[in-house]
């Protein structure tokens, strides 16, 4: 067939280029997720090579990359701290944390004389140690204390934040007059606008003092203070998502319940809340994801002691805080460095998993639930 007058014009090449450019750029997000996994995981590969132990902490770059001069002359060095068997960065008197290692001069981790004996125990064995003492002649990379610390603070944060967020969401979605709701929602969501370093600072100065006065805890900074701090970030997330899913419950459901003689509050608690359960569940899951990966609040408010204890009034150290506190001083390429990236990989995998559950499972449930009716 010959070309007719509706046949494509030349200019459409540009159109294709535009569309494909957009598509390729749009794949950035997918690519990034992939790259995050690859490159965070890649840095752990030092742990897999047999002679990983012997990477010298040499080179100008190692020094250059150090976070700048920090003044911490009074603090104990990490090693001294370990010998005295007190948490390495926690300073009970001021309630502040020192650096794991004052790093005024030279590399933070000079090759130790004992490197050879140390090499006999592989890093993998060290991961199951009962203690986290990464900077020592016989380093212990026990992640258990960190995991327990993370679990404690996350649990407390959810225990506090989730009910507050959900109840406030119920008030906003069911009981509040429209005018109040219009103001309330953005106001509560302001909480999400606080930088976490500011929340951490608030906990460090105000909440810590308040809790110590109130509970008489031995350590000023501890899992409770950290949990409260983290709950401040959990509240707006849980509130927003729960509010959204509560408001999305079909009106017909509410009317049916009211018509059957249920009161407003019975309807809210017994009909609407269960109907929105998958959404509320998703809200809590995302709250968990936020709390356990949060770094600055954890670093500033938990006391940072990687101790394996059961008490919630004890200072703790979370996984994220460990990376935040130690990455700046570590020798790039060392075992310690690899283990920190391993911790990062754990954080990434867990957050990915939580998100996948909410995306694939919870949303499907919600869709099926409301369409099934």
């Amino acid at each position, binding site marked *: *067939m010959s*070309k*007719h*007058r*509706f*046949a*494509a*014009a030349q*200019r*459409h090449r540009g159109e294709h280029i535009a569309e494909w450019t957009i598509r390729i750029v749009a794949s950035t997000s997918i690519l990034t997720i992939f790259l995050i996994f690859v490159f965070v995981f890649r840095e752990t590969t030092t742990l897999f090579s047999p002679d990983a132990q012997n990477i010298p902490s040499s080179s100008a770059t190692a020094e250059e990359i150090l976070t700048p001069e920090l003044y911490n002359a009074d603090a104990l060095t990490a090693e001294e701290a370990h010998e005295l068997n007190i948490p390495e960065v926690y300073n009970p008197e001021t309630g502040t944390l020192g650096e794991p290692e004052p790093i005024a001069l030279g590399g933070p981790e000079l090759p130790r004389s004992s490197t050879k004996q140390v090499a006999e125990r592989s890093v993998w064995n060290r991961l199951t140690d009962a203690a986290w003492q990464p900077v020592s002649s016989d380093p212990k990379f026990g992640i258990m204390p960190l995991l327990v610390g993370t679990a404690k603070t996350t649990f407390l944060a959810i225990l506090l934040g989730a009910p507050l967020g959900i109840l406030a969401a119920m008030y906003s979605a069911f009981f509040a007059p429209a005018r109040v709701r219009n103001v309330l929602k953005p106001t509560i969501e302001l909480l999400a606008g606080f930088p976490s370093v500011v929340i951490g600072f608030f906990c460090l100065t105000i909440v810590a003092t308040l809790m110590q006065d109130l509970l008489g805890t031995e350590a000023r900074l501890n899992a409770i203070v950290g949990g409260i701090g983290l709950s401040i970030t959990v509240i707006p997330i849980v509130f927003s998502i729960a509010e959204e899913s509560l408001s999305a419950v079909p009106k017909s459901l509410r009317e049916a319940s009211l018509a059957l003689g249920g009161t407003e509050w019975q309807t809210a608690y017994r009909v609407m809340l269960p109907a929105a359960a998958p959404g509320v569940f998703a809200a809590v899951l995302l709250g968990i994801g936020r709390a356990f990966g949060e770094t600055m609040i954890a670093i500033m408010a938990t006391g940072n002691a990687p101790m394996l204890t059961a008490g919630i009034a004890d200072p703790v150290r979370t996984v994220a805080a460990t990376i935040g506190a130690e990455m700046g001083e570590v020798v790039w390429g060392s075992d310690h460095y690899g283990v920190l990236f391993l911790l990062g990989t754990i954080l990434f995998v867990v957050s990915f998993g939580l998100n996948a559950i909410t995306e694939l499972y919870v949303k499907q449930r919600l869709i099926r639930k409301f369409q099934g009716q």
Partner: protein
Amino acid sequence: MAKEHPVKVRTSDFSVYYGQKQALFNIGIDIFDRKVTAFIGPSGCGKSTFLRSINRMNDLIDGTRCSGKLEVDGIDVYGKEVDVVTLRRSIGMVFQKSIPFPKSIYENITYGLTLTEKRSKDELDHIVETSLKRAALWEEVKDRLTHSAQGLSGGQQQRLCIARAVAVNPEILLMDEPCSALDPISTGKVEELITELKDTYTIVLVTHNMQQAARVSDYTGFFLMGKLIEFDRTRSIFTAPSKKETEDYITGRFG
């Protein structure tokens, strides 16, 4: 019916599906060149679907398929070689809810013109004036061409949209309930306009207003539940419909 005019749009056995749902069933119709063809029928019967099939606006909706033939000037519109953009340039469309672009009146008219080629200011000025005159809007807006088109009244906005469509000099003008949001005076103006424009364009008009169809169209098609029940000269349809359903609809017994 006699075919004294050349055919502009011809369909045969043309069906449209939205996903699983079939919206049009085996439509066969001849739309004549430079005549006004009106489509009437109850809501949801497929009038808009048919109209939007002619310039392939339905392509924009995910999951739409069609079968059968739809030809413009003997060219299969859904054929492989057809480029929708080129096709749409020769088929203007006026929508029920026509919002002008949030630009000036002048830019609204020149929008379609500047898409493909650069034109001189004089040429643009000239086309803007003639298009607005054709749309019977020139006198009302000639002093505020640079003002935002959103400041116009509803009726003026609709005429601006007609001017906008006319400016690119199409051969067919599709109008989907162009007057349904207008007051009677504006409606009168648009109807007048349609009668004038049919000397130049083949006009296909969807309307819910039977009087309007009777007033302005030469041919009328009656749709019901996705089927073209009857198609004939407007006079015949309104005076002596051959189908029972058409008569029922026209006399207001349903719909």
